[in-house]
């Protein structure tokens, strides 16, 4: 479970199948595959014939899910080598999508944020997007100073992977950026940063 009570963080309500959608677009990362596989018994012929599944494995996690997903027999299935490739494909799929398309996103929070950003930029309504958090609690963090993004942050503070400043991970989330905010923790007294703690495993 993710920490609750962060006002700016979206609530990920789960991939509830929308049986009357004209098209189902599943965008899954790593353990996010299970969000769909766990409800395989509800996928009838009609739904499968209208479904497109895009999947990216995530490091060592999620290996083997590509075969299980392929066996579902969706109308279209694509395994992307990287998240960037998957997002590029998602952009094309959504550009050609019609009214009545439902987008289902599952995976780590950073991945959900990035896929959401693509969809919202293309004008997709919030209500047409369903999300489910699966896998690591790692955060995607934007450094408020250099604006660089660091993926898979599990500790706070951590060193910005771009400018190197030790950053406190604030409980403040931007949907537009799909990221939490990182703020220099020892700005007032450089060198005084506390030891990192594993907070988001």
């Amino acid at each position, binding site marked *: 479970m993710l920490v609750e009570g*962060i*006002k*700016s963080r979206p609530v990920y309500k789960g991939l509830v199948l929308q049986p009357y959608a004209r098209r189902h677009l599943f965008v899954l990362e790593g353990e996010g595959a299970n969000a769909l596989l766990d409800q395989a018994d509800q996928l009838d012929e009609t739904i499968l014939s209208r479904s497109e599944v895009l999947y990216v494995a995530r490091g060592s996690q999620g290996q083997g899910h590509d075969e299980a997903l392929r066996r579902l027999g969706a109308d279209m299935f694509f395994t992307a080598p990287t998240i960037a490739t998957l997002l590029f494909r998602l952009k094309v799929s959504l550009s050609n999508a019609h009214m009545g398309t439902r987008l289902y996103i599952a995976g780590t929070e950073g991945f959900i944020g990035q896929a959401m950003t693509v969809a919202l930029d293309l004008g997709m309504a919030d209500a047409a997007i369903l999300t489910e958090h699966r896998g690591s609690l790692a955060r995607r963090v*934007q450094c*408020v*100073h250099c*604006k660089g993004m660091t993926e898979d942050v599990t500790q706070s503070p951590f060193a910005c992977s771009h400018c190197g*400043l030790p950053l406190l991970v*604030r*409980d*403040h*989330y*931007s*949907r*537009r*950026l799909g990221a939490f*905010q990182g*703020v*220099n923790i020892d*700005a*007032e*007294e*450089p060198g005084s940063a506390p030891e990192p703690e594993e907070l988001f495993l």
Partner: protein
Amino acid sequence: MSLAFKQETFRDDFTYRNSPENIRRFPFPFDRDEYMYSVNMEPHVKGRAGTVYENLIDVDEHYVSEMRDRALVLKEDPLRYQALPHMMSAQWDTLELLMEQQAAGYPEHFTLIRNGDQWRWINRPLGIDDTFTFGDAATLPYEPLEYISRQTQGDICIVDQRDGNLWMDAGMVTTQADWSLDFDIGMNFMEWHGPVPLAHQIGVFERALKFLLNLQLGKPVRRFNWTMTINPRLDTSPENYPKWGPDRTTVTPENVGEKVHLRVELQTLWRLPRSNAILFVIRCYLMNMEELVSVPKWARRFPRVLKTLPPELVDYKGLTRYRQTTIDWLSTHDDGAPTSPGFWPD
């Protein structure tokens, strides 16, 4: 009365100071000897001459230097100005309102001449005389919001209203108390206030949102917010925290009076006519402790406010390192006499 604009800096050598007249009109935000969050909104109507309510958009002796500081900030970080594409109608609403108010309040400094959609805007303090077509952004050197907010004191945000919520969808933010427009743009009211402590639990934001959703055209409202800043620095952005954060360790009993500043935000909210958005002006006023204690009532009241501040607010406002030093210094100016109710000097 014509204003004498000061040449001063809000960085490096920090030459910003208030004249004695400007201290008298400072919007001291405490009407009693203690402070807690509340939905402290009231109608934004004109007040007495010699106060910041003399005009609804206040222009003061710092105007020219503040506009120069804003230009410097934008040169380093243009992301301080951003507007989402659907906000263009609200941008024009804002340009109109700010031109009208400044021209009405200070005719010797600003003039707006309208001939159908052909407008001429004269800003004498900044040496601007532009003719443009209202509604055609290509006839201005910047987008309408950026254009007019480079000529208006205070941070200028425009909040869109839809789905029963308010959305931070455009803004010029260079004089902020530690929040990032670049991070918060596109957020709704609850989201952008997410990091504020205590206020959520006591329902302040729910009540404030409900109130603002019903804001009426022609009936702007105002409220105060406040914090403290070391050195008269307008740009206390999170982006530049590594630059101004170390200032907080430099306060000593000897320099409190000059270095420690009360930072007051006079926030005004205006319903906009075409877009139905809300213009949110966050005007920052700075006054150092030396200047503050020149008004005996404020010298008594402010240390009492600081002493009784809840610890969460001390932390959130970033006062921890220098609050006690400041209280000690201020207390030498507090003779313990009772203070009169209300904000104004006696």
